[in-house]
């Protein structure tokens, strides 16, 4: 499986994502946000960071990038699409997953390991996990407080301790089809025990493998 990792100006997790995907036996390639053709890629990841310095709203400018037309096409075609942290915010602004993000409930920038629970395994992020499985990976965000007035987003991972006020405790949300997922904590930073946890592996392996 060949995965495109889209680089917007201000993104800062792209190399971590490439390293993680390659460590798991996948193929990953950085693509610039102005690229207009993602033909030949089987999946796409929008990595974390601060695209365009979060101008206006997180993800608001990034969703206008030419590459996002290709991301939307791949999402429609059923390809795995994953947005991590800022990448999830971009997916929301693009309307590829429902909802939007606001500041954390306590206005704190949260940077620590969080315990998550798998609540839905019908998504490209969780299909290899067990329902109820506990996963410990790092959260690193200020605007991780997801709101979805439409109540159409499908929560696939939830925080055990509700650190930020996210609706339904959502740490990861899927579109109806399950192939487009946004996740706030960082699975790519938890792929080896040397990093404090290897719990992110099951999530990224889910992304890479549909069996």
């Amino acid at each position, binding site marked *: 499986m060949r995965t495109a990792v889209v680089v917007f100006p201000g993104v800062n997790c792209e190399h971590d994502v490439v390293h993680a995907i390659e460590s798991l036996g996948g193929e990953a390639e950085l693509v610039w946000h102005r690229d207009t053709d993602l033909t030949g890629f089987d999946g796409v990841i929008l990595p974390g960071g601060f695209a365009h310095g979060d101008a*206006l*709203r997180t993800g*608001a400018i990034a969703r*206008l990038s030419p590459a996002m037309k290709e991301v939307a096409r791949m999402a429609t075609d059923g390809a795995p699409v994953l947005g991590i942290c800022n990448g999830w915010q971009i997916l*929301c*602004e693009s309307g590829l997953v*429902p*909802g*939007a993000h*606001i*500041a*954390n*409930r*306590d*206005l704190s920038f949260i940077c620590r390991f969080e315990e998550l629970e798998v609540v839905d395994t019908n998504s490209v992020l969780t299909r290899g996990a067990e329902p109820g499985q506990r996963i410990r990976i790092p959260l690193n965000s200020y605007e991780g*407080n997801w*709101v*979805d*007035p*439409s109540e159409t987003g499908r929560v696939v991972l939830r925080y055990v301790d509700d650190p930020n*006020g996210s609706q339904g405790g959502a740490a990861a949300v899927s579109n109806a089809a399950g192939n487009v997922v946004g996740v706030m904590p960082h699975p790519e930073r938890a792929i080896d025990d040397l990093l404090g946890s290897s719990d992110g592996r099951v999530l990224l392996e889910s992304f890479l493998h549909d069996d």
Partner: protein
Amino acid sequence: MRVTVTIDRRPEIADPEGTTVKKALHDLGFTEATTVRMDRVIHLDVDGDDPDQVRARVEEMCRQLLANPVLEDFAVELEPSSDGAG
């Protein structure tokens, strides 16, 4: 033409920043401040003389970019021209 766009987070959506500022005002003794909402104001200078047309274009800017329809409402206000022409 000078245009002012006000972006309001809808009342049913939480505003953690507004809540924090309200608490700080109360700490200072301004307990009469019962609601604080951190809305956003955007000033634009827009080419065009036809107020209806300018308004329609700016409203479209709000729909496409300036406001997030999931969270926010917007209001567009045209300011009288200050160059003496209108």
